[in-house]
């Protein structure tokens, strides 16, 4: 079970793997950057900003999709079935003549909403609770911790599937709620652990000894230190949520067709020998997911190593 104990030098295994297949969260339970490059004092580096720009661009596309004069994702153009990339259809079409570009863009909406919204909620609610619990401790801490422990004991994908099954029909809102219920205890534990690490530091004791109230300490002293770590974990959470939703969609258990979702587009593309005939159907959403996840992972990692190095210098 996820546990706050440090098991071996410098490797806290308090991060819980969201059991979806990437277990990306687990992999970032180490304190070392993947390449071990020391952070240049200058900034987060070009890689980080490129990834950030890409993510923002994708979000922009998804949000303003309807204003972009894209072909409807459900419009079937029988004159261009299974077409490869070309002038009329930039990414090609699927076996029903639907434009792949617009399908991917509209499909990304679902993924991005389910990626960012629950994590946002989780950071605010779970993170806030974690900050409070980590700093104050006591009965509140014990109870919330126990509740979080119980919720997290249940495997995530299974929980989502099972709740979904009995809470039909599935909608974006319901999925967001379910994801948020899982994300909140996760982020609670992570931020609580980070807060605990900071709460015993001298600057906090100093602030308290000068009579600062709890709220002030939380916001002015602890929050700025927790933030980088929290954002880093948040980004990984987004990546994990996207994977989770994609897996669900692939299983046909996410938003119902014909609303496209990246996962179900891949599903369609992988069935009925379509892979051999028109690999593009599965390819484009797969590529999108890959790039998105890479960008998120790189950003999270860069954030972590940038602030970790500063920690090490202390």
């Amino acid at each position, binding site marked *: *079970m*996820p546990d706050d*104990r440090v*098991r*071996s*030098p*410098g*490797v806290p*295994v308090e991060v819980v*793997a969201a*059991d*979806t*297949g*990437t*277990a*990306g969260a*687990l*992999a970032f339970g*180490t*304190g*070392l950057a*993947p*390449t*071990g490059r020391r952070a240049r004092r200058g900034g987060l580096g070009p890689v980080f900003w490129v990834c950030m720009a890409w993510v923002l661009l994708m979000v922009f596309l998804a949000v303003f999709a309807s204003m972009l004069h894209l072909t409807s994702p459900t419009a079937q153009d029988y004159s261009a079935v299974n077409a490869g990339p070309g002038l009329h259809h930039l990414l090609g079409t699927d076996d029903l003549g639907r434009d792949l570009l617009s399908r991917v863009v509209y499909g990304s909406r679902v993924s991005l909403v389910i990626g960012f919204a629950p994590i946002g909620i989780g950071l605010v609610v779970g993170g806030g609770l974690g900050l409070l619990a980590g700093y104050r401790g006591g009965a509140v801490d014990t109870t919330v911790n126990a509740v979080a422990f*119980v919720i997290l*004991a*249940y*495997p*995530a*994908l*299974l929980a989502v*599937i*099972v*709740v979904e*099954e*009995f*809470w*039909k029909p599935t909608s974006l809102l319901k999925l967001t709620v379910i994801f948020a219920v899982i994300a909140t205890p996760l982020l609670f534990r992570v931020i609580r652990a980070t807060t605990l690490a900071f709460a015993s530091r001298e600057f906090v004791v100093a602030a308290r000894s000068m009579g600062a109230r709890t709220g002030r300490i939380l916001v002015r002293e602890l929050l700025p230190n927790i933030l980088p770590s929290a954002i880093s974990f948040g980004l990984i959470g987004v990546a994990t949520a996207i*994977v989770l939703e*994609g*897996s669900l*969609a*692939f*299983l*046909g*258990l996410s938003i119902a067709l014909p609303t496209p979702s990246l*996962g179900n587009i*891949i599903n369609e*593309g*992988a069935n009925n*020998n379509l*892979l*051999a005939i028109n690999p593009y159907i*599965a390819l484009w959403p*797969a590529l999108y*997911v*890959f790039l998105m*996840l890479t960008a998120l*992972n*790189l950003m999270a990692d860069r954030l972590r190593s940038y602030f970790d190095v500063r920690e090490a210098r202390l």
Partner: protein
Amino acid sequence: MLRYAGTRLVQLVVITFLISVFTFLLVHLLPGDPTVAILGPNDTPTARAELLRQLGLNKPLVDQYGTWLVNVLHGNLGQSFTTKQEVTNALGEGAPIDLELIVVSQVIALVVALPLAMVAALRPNRVFDRAATTSTFGLLALPTFVIAPILVLVVAVKIHVFPATGWDSLSEGIGPNLKSAILPSICLAFGSIAVYYRLLRADLIATLQEDYVTMARSKGLSTRYILLRHALRPSSFTLLAAAGLVIGGLFTSAFIVEVLFALPGIGYLLVQAIYSDDYLMVQGMALVAAMAFVVINFGVDFVLTLLDPRVRRA
């Protein structure tokens, strides 16, 4: 030691109880009437009343829970509505497949990740390390539902080496059995490779800087010996913890692989049950899957405590 075991055991019991309650309540608390789903077109008031009586759904909730719990403890998880098969039978048929998938995939993951991590840790930040770290980083961005279709396309469709779907059980010979297991296991292994590699590499790098490793070198022991007999054991704690979490998560990511490759494991059966609104099946399987997850995690945690002589003494 004993006190720790006792605490964990109590936690396990409490979690088990809560899981059983949760799984039981799913049917009853969430909006949506299961009878509607079950009866389908045969939905008449009399049929519904009859079904309610049959399922015991007209009794008070606590009574129902009691009956259900007693049944469960006797091994009676009910009967599937669609296949009329006992849930326990279905589980018994599906479980070995999941088991085999998990075992084979983890073997593959370890066989790949361990040597990679060891070589990389010996010369950190050199060519090999950078290459290996970058490529495993990429693996994190390839969740199962992305990589599986691609793998199938490349290996099964184009090259026809391994079967794209279907499962040959052990009774048909170990050759065909392994052949049908390899591709899905590789899909499952991808994410695990990334996790194992990163964690082990980080831990090994830290361990190799310890004084006792320098001392072992000063005794003239070979690098290979030092890696395997001195550095690996302390580093393996992290690995074990990671394995526990990964395996716990594999249960659910196996769902996707099973659906794609049409392997009749628990995940596949569960998803089929969901498609056909076979709620007793879903309930029973969810219970078992969740329990397995919890027990594995607790077990791994316990084993870890046993193995670490430092923690033991505390």
